[in-house]
């Protein structure tokens, strides 16, 4: 019998993907024979835009590279600029930065847990875990003023202090997560259906993880002990004991499957709570920003010359920003790399040989952030589609609609 495969496109608009990206699968029966990735539906050309703006404006652009990593990109970008311009930031600011970044990790990992459960068709867990997530969003709103896109990072420090009165509120939230953690762990690690759907699914070997330059929980679940907070500590992480978490801590073996990625993320949740607690205890007093006056800071940056790298361990993996300043208002080069960009290639070995039903959970297992990844690429008008409304049609539609609405 000849093997006849057929292809199904997934994306760019598909309920399991909250963001646009296109996959083309060649399927034989229910099994995947070949995968073609075609990212590029979410390109906004952010780096291109950034190279026409000044450095303070870019912080807000970097924040909007991705709404879920909205502390990670500004963190990495600010570090890159500080390294390039030689700005020392006050210790208190370093601690506040770490607290915000770790709170973001808690929110991101719980968000991921809910999304993963949703991909498995386990909506109850989605609802319950997202209810737990609201707690940390409330805290972030209390500390920074917004649920998402915090706007707290600034070149040279942070924009808002964490006062003494705010600390009990932080501790309350941490206590809440400590209380419910055992429940979350019980649901994800002991539920038989979740185990059935995730064990030995989407396996990424250690060799592949290294070869394809995987980062973050994806790499760690495959046994690569790579975590910048441990390898090259920055900000307050230099004072704290942070260890890269691999699944063998809990189970003794590394399989590199989706189940292991769940373990890593759950354990990192605990780690984040501990980090924040340590930060709160050791937080030094002092200034929170190197240069308070924006105009002065901008002038200083205008005169700066040099290049710098900023790295940050985002919830999904390492963010790295490269900035080159050349005594001008705008940066000469701004290159941003998000974790998904590197984890992209590791989808292929994970997906080959799996079933259609595994596609959503495998794709979700690296916690993809297409918005992050696609920021660099540039698009032109895509004329390849057959069924397209012309501008005239649309205009007519629009006119009709207006007529209908206005009496």
């Amino acid at each position: 019998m000849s093997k006849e495969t057929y292809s199904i496109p997934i994306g760019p608009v598909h309920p399991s993907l909250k963001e646009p990206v296109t996959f083309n699968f060649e399927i034989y029966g229910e099994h995947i024979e070949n995968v073609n990735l075609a990212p590029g539906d979410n390109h906004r050309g952010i780096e291109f835009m950034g190279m026409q703006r000044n450095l303070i404006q870019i912080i807000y652009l970097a924040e909007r590279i991705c709404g879920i990593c909205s502390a990670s990109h500004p963190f990495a970008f600010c570090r890159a600029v500080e390294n390039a311009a030689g700005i020392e930031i006050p210790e208190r600011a370093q601690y506040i930065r770490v607290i915000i970044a770790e709170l973001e990790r808690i929110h991101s990992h719980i968000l991921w847990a809910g999304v993963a459960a949703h991909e498995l068709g386990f909506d109850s867990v989605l609802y319950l875990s997202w209810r737990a997530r609201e707690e940390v969003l409330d805290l972030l709103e209390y500390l920074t003023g917004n649920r998402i896109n915090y706007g707290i990072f600034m070149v040279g420090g942070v924009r808002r202090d964490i006062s003494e009165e705010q600390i009990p509120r932080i501790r309350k939230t941490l206590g809440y997560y400590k209380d419910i953690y055992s429940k979350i762990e019980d649901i994800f690690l002991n539920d038989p259906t979740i185990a059935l759907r995730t064990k030995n699914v989407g396996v990424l070997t250690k060799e592949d993880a290294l070869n394809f330059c995987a980062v973050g929980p994806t790499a760690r679940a495959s046994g690569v002990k790579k975590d910048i907070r441990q390898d090259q500590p920055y900000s307050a992480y230099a004072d704290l004991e942070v260890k890269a978490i691999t699944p063998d801590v809990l189970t003794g073996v590394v399989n590199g499957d989706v189940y292991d990625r769940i373990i890593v993320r759950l354990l990192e949740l605990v780690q984040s709570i501990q980090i924040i607690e340590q930060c709160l205890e050791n937080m030094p007093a002092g200034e929170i920003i190197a240069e308070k006056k924006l105009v002065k800071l901008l002038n200083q940056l205008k005169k700066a010359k040099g290049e710098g790298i900023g790295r940050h361990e985002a919830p999904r993996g390492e963010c790295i920003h490269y900035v080159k300043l050349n005594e001008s208002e705008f940066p000469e080069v701004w290159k941003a790399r998000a974790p998904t960009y590197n984890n992209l290639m590791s989808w292929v070995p994970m997906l080959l040989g799996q079933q259609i039903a595994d596609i959503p959970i495998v794709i979700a297992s690296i916690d993809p952030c297409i918005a992050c990844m696609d920021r660099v690429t540039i698009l032109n008008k895509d004329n390849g589609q057959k069924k397209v409304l012309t501008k005239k049609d649309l205009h007519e539609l629009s006119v009709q609609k207006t007529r209908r609405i206005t009496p």
Partner: protein
Amino acid sequence: MEYMKPDEIVELFKKRLNKSTIIDSRIETKTAGLTKSSYNVIWLKINPEDLKNAVKLLSTIHFPHLAIISGNDMGEEIELIYHFSIYYGARFKEISIDLSIHLPKKDLRIPTITDLIPGAQVTEREMKEMMGITVEGLPELPNLFLPKDFAKDTHPFRRDEKGIYPLSKNGNYVGNNIIRKEEVKKIE
């Protein structure tokens, strides 16, 4: 595991590669936290011909993690920086190594390093699309990021006539539904 010091790594590169290969080298030491713990970043400017040898040499020290290649159009030539890191997996031990090569505009060719690090494919293809660099040895693959019908010989990150307005000065624009002629005129 033996860990080499940053200056030892630079020495090793100077010793094992041709004398003329290492054009410039710089070691940065940064500190962080209350404890002022330090970490190192090595910047190496090397000859484009020896790029592959340098990566091979790097692999003998420790399997390098390639973060990304960043490109910069400097007018006469294009600078590519390969952002590597080695010695990850142990506390305070990781060293960032940034290999920079300068390619003249007339001869924009680099060898692929995907045979050494398969994961480099994405970023090499990105540079091919964004900067118009020919990556030798990379199979002919469809565009990763740019659409199929994107104008040939237009590379968005270039600042010369092959680039895109307003970074380029010639007023060419791509994507007629996005930047309009009158807007171009207004800015000019």
